């Protein structure tokens, strides 16, 4: 069975190491904050200038001056710090953020990612995505393996305008977890009940399968 959005988020959260600094994009990545394993402490970085993003506020705690990068009201966690946008991107571009998780339209087997622009549709902007993919040590992309017509989103070469080149290391889809290296997608885990053949069929770029591929534990 293909994973739900929540299950993709659960699998992402298993990657977080205790004591890591993590930036989560909008959508499925944000959900991962709900599934951080017990005994693992992470500090969430919000690129508008908050390290240590806490829970949403109660009605009484709402403060117009406390928002996250999605422009939602938030609180600060214990140990948080607040700083300027230049400082925030110094952390990001300087490689100090341990994990960045973001969505994408397409990725390819050279680690390229397209996530911000579809020609012919109105372009709203890249926000911080280009800085994040250029700067983070480990980038996890969350996406569905294929589009709604069944076309692969894991390509030989991205067709859409890129967000970053040669930067993606891990992909977690509704079907699989894959590592991107040496110009190919290396299959690491399968979603429970999903066969290697199905993953192969839905992966346009070169897929490397070494030995038995374990199922994910969600």
């Amino acid at each position, binding site marked *: 069975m293909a994973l739900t959005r929540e299950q993709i988020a659960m699998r992402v959260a298993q990657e977080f190491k205790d004591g890591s600094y993590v930036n989560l994009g909008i959508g499925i990545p944000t959900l991962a904050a709900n599934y951080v394993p017990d005994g693992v402490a992470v500090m969430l970085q919000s690129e508008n200038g908050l390290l240590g993003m806490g829970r949403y506020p109660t009605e009484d705690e709402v403060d*117009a001056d406390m928002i996250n990068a999605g422009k939602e009201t938030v609180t600060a966690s214990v140990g948080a710090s607040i700083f300027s946008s230049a400082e925030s*991107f110094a952390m990001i571009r300087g490689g100090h953020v341990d994990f960045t998780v973001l969505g994408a339209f397409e990725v390819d087997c050279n680690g390229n990612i397209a996530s911000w622009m579809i020609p012919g549709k*109105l372009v709203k902007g890249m926000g911080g995505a280009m800085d994040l993919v250029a700067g983070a040590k480990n980038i996890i992309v969350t996406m569905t393996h294929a589009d709604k017509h069944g076309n692969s989103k894991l390509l030989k070469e991205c067709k859409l305008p890129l967000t970053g080149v040669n930067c993606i290391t891990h992909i977690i889809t509704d079907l699989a977890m894959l590592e991107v290296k040496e110009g190919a997608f290396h299959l690491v885990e399968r979603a429970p009940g999903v066969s290697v053949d199905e993953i192969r069929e839905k992966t346009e770029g070169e897929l490397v399968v070494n030995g038995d591929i374990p199922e994910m534990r969600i």
Partner: protein
Amino acid sequence: MSGFNKVVASYDEAMAGLKDDMTIIAGGFGLCGIPEGLIAQIQKMGTKGLTVVSNNCGVDGFGLGLLLEKHQIKKMVASYVGENALFEKQLLDGELEVELTPQGTLAEKMRAGGAGIPAFYTATGYGTPVGEGKEVREFNGRPHILEESVTGDFAIVRAWKADTMGNCIYRHTAQNFNPMAATAGKITVVEAEEIVQPGELAPTEIQTPGIYVDRVIQGQFEKRIERKVTRDA
């Protein structure tokens, strides 16, 4: 009155000297930390042909969105402009030009501009439409693109507290782009929630030293929230 007293009494004085075709650098992220009264004053003045450098362009009817209503913006330099129907219309009509800029590059353009650094290399945007036509140079085996910094004829900034000498502190995430914007204006105008006397802010807590600031005005803020999300108590 001391030569270091930068407080002005009216919004007319605060934005005096703003002319058509000038460049304005504005602090704020979404509607958080925007200099609301200064933006309203620019709308009132009706200045046209402006280039505005800001992370976003407000929303319809509020923030920098006000300047779209009177067709005052010629060019917008921003990282994300998706919150605004009027923006979309003017862009599609060819009335408005937009230079989409990665958020970190935008912050660094302001920071570098204010610090007298005309350009810098960054890996951000290499190999993407942002890097097209820009000089590429390799450092540590990795390609980088040359990005030019920005300065403005005016910078408009929202502070939490400013003293009369222009020293500023910011409140929570309303800080965002404001400290960099403050450094990058030929004339920097600070709209403060509260103006205090010199000495009331401790030297170590000051985030924008007064040397960057030319004018300070007492503001009134609505502080509109774009996406209010709450949890149960």
